């Protein structure tokens, strides 16, 4: 029975992430368009783009090696596995599941590493530039991510993400340090999903692009996989933030009614977060590359303060 439930959890969660993640990409675009006084693309546009890309032929550069071919598959596989760690709508019972936040973060890092390699692989100038920038940013943001998740682990006394959500769901009072962690997590979402102060997801302007530069050489199905995996990464991180800050509605028993409530609750919470991200993105300009550490330093500071409060107080 338990095994079946776990299996059901895995299937539901993975498919949910797979199906819903493009929606939030379009939603954020829509919010940004509205703040600029435009109508913006339809909410289904990202799905249409992906469907079109999946039908197209994949073209490889003559100079590219197996890395170019393997990267999209590794990316999507890593993100699919990572999506098992973040319960979006159904919280499975505590079991001796393999894996914890460290594995989760390493899966995200693995995807990023191969993406950077693929950027270098084709030998185009833009790809190399994008990879170099991405790695420079990663070197700065990874310690912050580790610290933020470490402070989460301290706050809930566990290293497994489902257990953290369970702790958040069980706590009757709102722990103030969660607020600090939430701000840090928000900054991490902005950085990891290449949003405005760090990167601009809209343009292919050579001076600013980071993420887009790395996947410039990808085409057809591979590009679809890369875009889907970056959408999934964004939804996973949003899921961590949403379910820790507002855990209400998260279903812990497996019945259609509670799952439906949980689904609705999650969609409402995530839509609010996506609107906030869109508004945040519209409210600030892309900052200079060398000023980015300032943004990361705020996340670092808040994570460290959380650690001080958790460890000493």
């Amino acid at each position, binding site marked *: 029975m338990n095994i079946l439930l776990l299996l059901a959890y895995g299937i539901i969660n993975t498919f949910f992430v797979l199906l819903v993640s493009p929606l939030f990409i379009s939603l954020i675009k829509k919010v940004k368009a509205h703040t600029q006084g435009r109508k913006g693309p339809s909410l289904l546009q990202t799905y249409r783009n992906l469907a079109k890309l999946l039908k197209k032929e994949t073209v490889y550069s003559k100079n590219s090696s197996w890395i170019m071919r393997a990267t999209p598959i590794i990316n999507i596989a890593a993100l699919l596995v990572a999506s098992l760690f973040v319960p979006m709508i159904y919280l499975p019972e505590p079991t001796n599941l393999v894996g914890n936040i460290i594995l989760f973060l390493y899966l995200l890092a693995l995807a990023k590493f191969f993406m950077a390699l693929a950027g270098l692989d084709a030998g185009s100038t833009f790809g190399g530039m994008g990879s170099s920038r991405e790695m420079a940013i990663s070197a700065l943001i990874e310690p912050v991510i580790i610290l933020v998740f470490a402070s989460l682990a301290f706050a809930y006394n566990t290293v497994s993400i489902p257990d953290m959500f369970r702790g958040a769901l069980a706590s009757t009072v709102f722990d103030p340090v969660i*607020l600090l962690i939430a701000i840090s997590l928000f900054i991490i979402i902005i950085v990891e999903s290449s949003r405005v102060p760090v990167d601009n997801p809209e343009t292919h302007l050579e001076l600013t692009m980071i993420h887009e530069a790395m996947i410039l050489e990808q085409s057809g199905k591979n590009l679809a996989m890369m875009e889907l995996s970056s959408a999934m990464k964004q939804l996973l991180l949003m899921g961590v933030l949403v379910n820790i800050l507002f855990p209400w509605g998260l279903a812990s028993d497996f019945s259609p009614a509670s799952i439906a409530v949980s689904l609705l609750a999650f969609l409402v919470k995530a839509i609010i977060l996506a609107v906030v991200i869109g508004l945040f993105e519209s409210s600030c300009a892309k900052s200079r590359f060398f000023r980015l*550490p300032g943004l990361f330093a*705020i996340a670092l*500071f808040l994570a460290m*303060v959380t650690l*001080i409060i958790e460890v*000493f107080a």
Partner: protein
Amino acid sequence: MTVVPMENISQMLMVLVLATAAIIIMKRDIRSLIKTYAFQSLLVAVMAVVFYIETGIITLLLLAILFTVSKVLIIPYFMGKVQRKLNIKRDVQFHFLSPITALIVSLFIILFVYLAFTPLIGELNRFNSSLFTLGVTIGVSLVFMGMIVIFTRKQTLTDVVGYLTMENGVVLFSLFLTELPLLIEILIIIDLIMLTLIATILAFGIDSTIEEFHSRLNPFMHPKESAEKKTEEDTQ
């Protein structure tokens, strides 16, 4: 829906105050610095209201009103006005520490303040142990963080924001430690307004010589006259 106790709300407010102090250390845009300061003062005022609900001391409510009027409305409005007149938008020069280093230094300061106050908790505690520790630590750290802002920034307006942050820290500290009489608080606020006024006016020419100072100040004090004078000079 979970019921959030008062203690929890004030903890959240304090944590947010600390976050605003971090933003004040990092920010370069003077207008958003002033807005952040106004927000920080609003948080302190809300905290005073929370304490009033908890303890029923009417002074706290009056204090909250005083803070809202003076520190959320008057001082930020005045500083915004001066900033527009001075036409300085950013503060990008730093002494001694870069903002990131300053943030890391303030981390150590928070840790140090915490360690310094732990032995005193038993003697000074007024409400509740955990709340008191957090409040005192954040209050005193806020004073130090304001000081860091003062000595790392070059623009006088930013220095004033740093000074005001220090004052917020003192208020936070005093909310937890003892109850100051309302009269003293009012005097402090009046001092604060006067000091902000004087400091921001001095900001026009704090880096100039005395001879230059009047010629710099006059266009701001009497914009009409100086404009006429200028056109006269131009025609001559």
